[in-house]
């Protein structure tokens, strides 16, 4: 199902904030928008204890998990050292103010 879905208008994701895409068939995807309007999509589950990353505080291109403060890189889905672990990243792009998303992960979850 690697098709692009027009998911939401860019302006409807708060800057340095997130939106949750809840997919009928699987786990939620979290969309983030950085200060320079780059958008990231990762599985909404922290590699630590599945905390909802969408609810964390975003800074730069990373997010801090709300449950126990792991820091996750949004581009790769990996936790910053010294923590170890990774969550899936999904293909996402912005065209004419629209955010397009694929529901098949771009990376396999490593840990």
């Amino acid at each position, binding site marked *: 199902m690697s098709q692009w879905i027009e998911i939401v208008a860019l302006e409807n994701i708060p800057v*340095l904030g997130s939106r949750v895409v809840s997919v009928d068939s699987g786990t939620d995807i979290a969309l983030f928008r950085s200060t320079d309007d780059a958008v990231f999509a990762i599985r909404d589950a922290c590699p630590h204890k599945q905390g*909802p990353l969408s609810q964390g*505080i975003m800074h730069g291109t990373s997010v801090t998990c*709300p*449950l126990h*403060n792991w820091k996750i890189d949004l581009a790769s889905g990996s936790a910053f050292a*010294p923590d170890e672990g990774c969550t899936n990243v999904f293909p996402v792009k912005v065209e004419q103010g629209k955010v397009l998303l694929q*529901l098949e992960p771009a990376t396999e979850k490593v840990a």
Partner: protein
Amino acid sequence: MLKQNLVLIGNGMAGVRTLEELLKLDSDLYNITVFGEEPYGNYNRIMLSPVLASEKTIDEIMLNDEQWYIDNNITLHKGKKVTEIQRGRQQVVTDDGITVPYDRLIIATGSTPFMLPLPGADKEGVIGFRDIKDVNTMMSATENYKKAVVIGGGLLGLEAANGLMKQGMDVTVVHLGGSLMDRQLDEPASEMLRQSLEERGMKFLMKHSSSEVLGDERVTGLRFNDGTEVEADLLVMAVGIKPNFALAKSAGLYCERGIVVNDTMQSYDPKIYAVGECVQHRGIAYGLVAPLWDQAKVCANHLANFGIARYEGTVTSTKLKVTGIELFSAGDFIGNENTEEIVFKDAATGTYKKIVLEDDKIKGAVMYGDTVDGSWYFQMMKDGTDVSAFRDTLLFGQAHLGDSGHNPETRVAGLPDDAEICGCNGVCKGDIVNAINEHKIFTLDEVRAHTKASASCGSCTGLVESLLSHTVGGDYSATPSTKPVCGCTDATHDEVREGIINMQLTTMKAVREEFQWRNADGCASCRPALNYYLLCAFPETYVDDPQSRFINERAHGNIQKDGTYSVVPRMFGGLCTAQQLRDIADIADKYKVPEMKVTGGQRIDMFGIKKEDLPPMWNDLSNAGFVSGHAYAKGLRTVKTCVGEKWCRFGTQNSTGLGVKLEELTWGSWMPHKFKIAVSGCPRNCAEATIKDFGVVCVDSGYELHVAGNGGIKVRVTDLLCKVQTEEDVLEYCAAFTQFYREDAHYLERTAPWIERVGLAKVQKALEEPEQRKALAERFAISQKKAQIDPWKERAQGTEALEFAPIKVSALGELV
């Protein structure tokens, strides 16, 4: 293969422990048969003293009841005495003729009380102190008789005397020597012990040698060598024990003062093992349980055919089981010409400590009054620890090592690797040391990052810092006393707060630029702090940034471990009406709330709410007249109140009403950390006002104001701020105090650590001047104007709608 037969003679502490150890190693090897002369299962003999003192019951001291024997397929012959061991035929015979063959035999016949061979010692009412039967005899004597005499001022004698005294008897202890427990205590300790027992009503006849038991059938008294007499209608002999080896000896086993065994607990007949008080090992016959546990392990190891354990003797220590008397002794506490001693004595507090050293190692210790460090000394004594490094503080104990200024790291250095340092995250010393070494860590933050130690509640921070400095030595970069806000900047909280006011920096971006932040967006630590500082500085103009708030404050609910939220509506002062409860109940039904709970803050918590359900639920709550309880906020949580003068027979003021007014005054306010208030109607303080950030205790003449208390992780009792006359005063002081805290404290600093940092005097001074106090209260009122717009109602009406609306996609990839 046929199972071998194992027979145990003696159903006491050592024998049964050996079976327990054996069952752990191999539960299938033997058919086990146990003979016990006493008509019970296996009980904890040392607890007979507390039973006699009515601190325990017989049931409570049972170690293994009869079901245990059944469960483990052990045949128990209770109330049966073995009278013969036929070594040739490998079988044992009881007094009533039961014969059981053995392949291996354990003798654990214990010992018997030594009864002085005095004329008349066979009279009724003359007993020893060894088993349940003796305790029963003593207990029933207490019903009909008044006067008890205990011969023997040792451990056992004093415990017997104490028990009898507790049963209401008039007790005299007769002792041959000049000081009590002379084998366990030196003279000063012994003297302190006697004094405190005398204070409890025990009488002593020291240096008295008994010559004859008086009476006809039953004892009536005791005569001494000097011709004097003492009345007695119960006489307990506790002058020592005799290892019970008559049976073994009659079977031809080699015995001296006990059954002689080697390091594998075997007697001279290798099929026959012996453990407990009946044995003599390397010349020693023990009279305490600790050695028996060691012996039992070794014996079981051999019975299970492992054959690798050896018993090499046990160093013992002593405690007296008399409630309220603390006493400890171990090793050689008398000393000789090669030893030195360190002594501490304070008669006023009844404390005495003596440590005997030889070559900087502990040889023995005796302590009276304060014995908490007994096990520490005992461990060092057994380990042969060199104590020269902390010899000058040795007597002050282990806890003192940490902050004595001499050797701050010694305490952590002494901890074993598996000692838990961080209770929140279950991190042990070994984990931390490994992380430090492996990752070449030098700072506390790095330790937190790598191990999570000290990363949650922080109460172990001191220990972790000591470990760091101990592990990395001089390279450790101690936490600077003025901490920067976070890793993004070198500026401190105070510098930032002053900068915001002085330079009128009105946005986070301006602050970050002015103070040369290293990350343009800041991080999860500094963003909430800056957002708060700006909100506090410019309450009327600053636009709050939801993305800089921790999720709980952004979503106005507490995030749960499964990603759902909790909802806690405010109940002012804990008061409620039947209608409000009905409304909450209806709303809970409507949103299928899976669990509800009355909180520790006198209101109701509804758990497990889906994020998208929050705004509609809040809408319903809002329509029913509720506002947010801010149970998630760095801000006012609850105002706890008690019943107060309206109903309570002790109430002096309207504490409930005042609580409601205080909550109406302060709700909604954003603060550096959470803030709790309580009002108690009298000094009985049912609302626990003295552990709150702001506590009011009503008294007849007015109101005591208490500040900077904390329940939580580190309990801190409030400081008394002042006393005021009227409710208006209370409200003004509350507003002024809150505002001063809001303007002065660092973000995430509760009032307790804040006041400890800045000092109560500074706060008192700020509030003393009426002008200044009013100005603070006024600023608080201004900030409340915007803060008291109910965030739930706003959101129910559409504010921040995106925050709560998930984007739903079907499996086919269509938006729904």
